[in-house]
């Protein structure tokens, strides 16, 4: 209990200390997680909406694969990106390993199936309900997909929040492809691992509290947007 109270006090001190390193870590954490969720949303939302509204031969198999990938261990995603961008890998020349770019790519791989899978599930039922009306009004193509996205928006926001939660909480992939380099690729989760390894439990816990607080603020903002609409 004393440790927790100390950690709370440490977390408060961390925030008000305006320590450059801590704020750098927070900024990089937000940049990487928001960017990866945004990129995954740009790809995943249209894909999920389309998958939810069409049927084809191998759709069941495809959805099974996507649902499996929703639980993809972050270290596996990290390993894939590591192999691809390591100096002996097919894209080694890009020299992005141990940079925030590689961290974003790894996180996109992790959160993309979450967004596609949850959006597909959310839009599938709506699509069935809307289908006859849309055909009767001769609404099709992009217009139909936009309408489906509009009608599924609450569930889609939940999907994005779930995806963001996965991005901000994962440590394996960012550690592997980012390398936890001070001032360059260190994010909240990798910093917590480092501090724990050094035996600085209170500082690690304090970082954890700050991480939880950031997550809470982002969730609150997204839910406010959802409720306002």
């Amino acid at each position, binding site marked *: 209990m004393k440790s927790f109270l100390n950690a709370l006090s440490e977390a408060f001190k961390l925030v008000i200390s305006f320590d450059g390193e801590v704020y750098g870590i927070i900024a990089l954490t937000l940049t990487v997680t928001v960017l990866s969720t945004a990129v995954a949303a740009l790809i995943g939302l249209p894909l999920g909406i389309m998958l939810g509204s069409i049927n084809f031969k191998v759709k069941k198999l495809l959805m099974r694969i996507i649902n499996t990938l929703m639980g993809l261990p972050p270290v596996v995603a990290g390993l894939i990106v590591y192999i691809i961008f390591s100096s002996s890998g097919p894209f080694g020349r890009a020299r992005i390993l141990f940079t925030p770019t590689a961290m974003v790519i790894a996180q996109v791989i992790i959160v993309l199936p979450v967004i596609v899978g949850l959006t597909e599930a959310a839009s599938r039922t709506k699509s069935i*309900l*809307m289908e*006859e*009306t*849309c*055909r*009767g*009004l*001769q*609404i099709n193509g992009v217009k139909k997909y936009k*309408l489906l996205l*509009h*009608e599924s928006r609450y569930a889609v926001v939940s999907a994005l929040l779930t995806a963001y939660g996965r991005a901000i909480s994962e440590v394996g992939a960012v550690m592997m492809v980012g390398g936890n380099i001070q001032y360059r690729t260190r994010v909240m989760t990798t910093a917590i691992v480092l501090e724990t390894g050094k035996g600085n439990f209170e500082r690690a816990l304090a970082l954890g509290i700050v991480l939880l607080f950031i997550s809470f603020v982002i969730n609150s903002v997204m839910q406010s947007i959802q409720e306002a609409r």
Partner: protein
Amino acid sequence: MRIILQDIVKSYQGRLVLNIKNMTFEGGKIYSVLGPNGSGKTTLLRIIAGIEKPDNGKVIIENEGKSSACSIAYLPQKPYIFDMTVIENVMLGLPKRPESESKALESLKKLGMIDYKDTNARALSGGGAQRVALARTLVLDKNIVILDEPASFVDAKSVGLIEDYIRSIISDRDSIVIFTTHDLSQSQRIADISVALE
């Protein structure tokens, strides 16, 4: 304008629900389709609207000698009401043009729904939602209008408005209106020809 049905057969899970040798719907006329539950009224409408394919036979739509399937507006029995305002719902099928809003407002006015134009359509009663769905279908100005029980949830006053609106479609042009109903008196009031399914 003419719709010709030839040798239409449709079954569901081995049960024959529709078997029509020959049926023609002529332009400038209102048709009512009558029959008990399960007689194939909705299936017939869905086949004409192109929502469903028959197991056998074909639907030919002749528009001034040319075949055309894109001039159909169809109101399903359970229309989907979108989570947006009434006016936005009615404008959904219209192109994005300045005159579209005035057309949508006119359509709502004809069905007595103009006062609700800024209300969320989901907040309306069953009858209100049905009138919005009907306004949304009729505003499209299509040559073929297919309505599956367009007045099943509305009150007597609104039924009159709906019937007047449907009649006005025919008087304006060489359109075909086909609707299903369980109300024999309604069929007699507005239909030129009644089709009975068993």
